[in-house]
């Protein structure tokens, strides 16, 4: 079942057309990476899903219910973590979660149990300080706790790791992985290493449209190969090969990198066979999301 369906979403700010007919489908129990450059329209899309922004055209369905602008009922299915979450700084984390629970009409015992469980999950269980003194990483972690409080069917995280140090990033990604058991996660980012680490599916946003979407394996298989690394046993063979083909580039003493077409590749192999050049290794360069990203968002 699809948790989220977006059809032909368009939004323009003044002269700038940010979204031009965006289509996106997020299946249940996935961690969906929403990838795009800065200013590509990721936050705009997320705000539209939450009814915080009025799209010019298109429709958004959350669990089959239509999202309306302003006061929308679909938000009860959604947990939201903004890029820079802000809380009532005079409260402690537990007080904040209690307040959120009461606002949403949860039972008293449930609020307490759930708050303690989530604060333990995000590693803020022992913290009785007021939020005022929290670091950015701590605020992000509290953000995940508050977003998961209502057991949402969809968790939307807007660049949760972008402003964090490597340790903070790892913590957030681990928490999101743990949260996968409970919910579907839509997660916007421009850090591709994060996507490769935790996402099951991803979509690339460019020019206001989704230019590619699918599982991580599918996306990677779209590009057969990024080329080959060819290492000869002797240095002079590497030089000779380089003179033979312009598509070969010398990277080390006897290592060459090949970026080119199939015919070119086989003609090089033929040359190696004919001249009986001893080879140390030939290795295919695995396509990375990064190279794919750069290619599709060109």
């Amino acid at each position: 079942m699809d948790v989220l369906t977006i059809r032909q979403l368009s939004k323009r700010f003044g002269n700038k057309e940010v979204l031009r007919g965006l289509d996106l489908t997020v299946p249940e129990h996935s961690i969906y990476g929403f990838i795009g450059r800065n200013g590509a329209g990721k936050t705009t899309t997320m705000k539209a899903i939450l009814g915080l922004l009025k799209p010019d055209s298109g429709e958004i369905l959350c669990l089959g219910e239509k999202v309306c602008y302003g006061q929308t009922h679909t938000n009860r299915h959604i947990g939201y973590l903004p890029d820079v979450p802000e809380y009532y700084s005079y409260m402690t984390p537990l007080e904040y979660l209690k307040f959120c629970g009461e606002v949403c009409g949860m039972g008293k015992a449930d609020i307490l149990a759930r708050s303690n469980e989530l604060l333990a999950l995000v590693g803020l269980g022992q913290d009785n300080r007021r939020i005022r003194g929290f670091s950015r990483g701590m605020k992000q972690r509290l953000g995940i706790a508050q977003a998961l409080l209502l057991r949402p069917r969809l968790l939307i995280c807007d660049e949760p790791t972008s402003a964090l140090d490597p340790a903070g990033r790892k913590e957030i990604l681990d928490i999101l992985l743990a949260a996968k058991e409970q919910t579907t996660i839509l997660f916007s980012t421009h850090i591709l290493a994060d996507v490769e680490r935790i996402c099951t599916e991803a979509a690339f946003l460019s020019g206001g449209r989704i230019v590619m979407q699918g599982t991580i394996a599918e996306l990677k298989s779209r590009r057969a190969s990024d080329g080959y690394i060819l290492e000869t046993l002797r240095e002079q063979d590497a030089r000779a090969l380089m003179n033979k083909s312009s598509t070969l580039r010398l990277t080390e003493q006897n290592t060459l990198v090949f970026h080119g077409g199939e015919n070119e590749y086989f003609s090089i192999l033929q040359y190696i066979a004919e001249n009986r050049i001893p080879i140390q290794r030939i290795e295919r360069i695995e396509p990375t999301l990064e190279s794919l990203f750069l290619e599709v968002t060109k």
Partner: protein
Amino acid sequence: MRSFIAFMKKECLESVRTGRLIILMLLFVLFGIMNPAIAKLTPWIMEMFADTMAESGLIITDVQVDAMTSWTQFFKNIPLALIAFVLICSDTFTREYKSGTLLLVLTKGLARFQVVLGKSALLFSLWTLGYWLCFAITYGYNAYFWDNKATGNLFPAALSWWLFGMWVICLVILFSVLLRNNTEVMLCTAAAVLLAYLLSFLPKVNAYTPAALMGAVSLLGSPGMQENLNTAITLQKPVIITVATCVICLAASIPVMNKKQL
């Protein structure tokens, strides 16, 4: 209803922990003490300046002060208290727009009208509490030093000013949901009050504008005077208009808030 109570609890906690409640109450207590104090000190001040004034030809004889002097001070000072109240409290919405704190609560399913009603209820309570605290302190001192019974129409006059304060708060709420910035909210509120005040100079409109409530001090006088009774009757129309505009402002704020981009 539960979410409204939760939101109200948060609003109360906020005014306590951010120190807003203490500041406001201190302010109103200070004003409450100041009114009788100024009245009590007037003869003494006059005496001090008597010599200087005599040189310029003004001869001060026995200065009489009573509860009426103190109540006149009360109505002179209360506009300042209202301005201070607006300055301190008018950012209750805009502060949340700016910081983005409201965003998380609204995406959790808190109805937007509850935000408007919760914040309004707190502002009304703070104003009511502070205003009547100030009134009670002045009343207590006046009863101790002089006699409040000598001041006729005291409660209608005090109620008028309290109602005028409520009207200004309703304007603050309406402008807060219409605009994003606290300065804009304060400027528009001030402009609206000024407009009402200027309209009150027009003889035909005077009987209808909420600004007529500001002239409540003219109600004060000796008890039982026919003239005072007449003044009370002329205030009926501004009271009705004021209550009506308050309701309209609040009712209009809700649909505006429902469609506000945050």
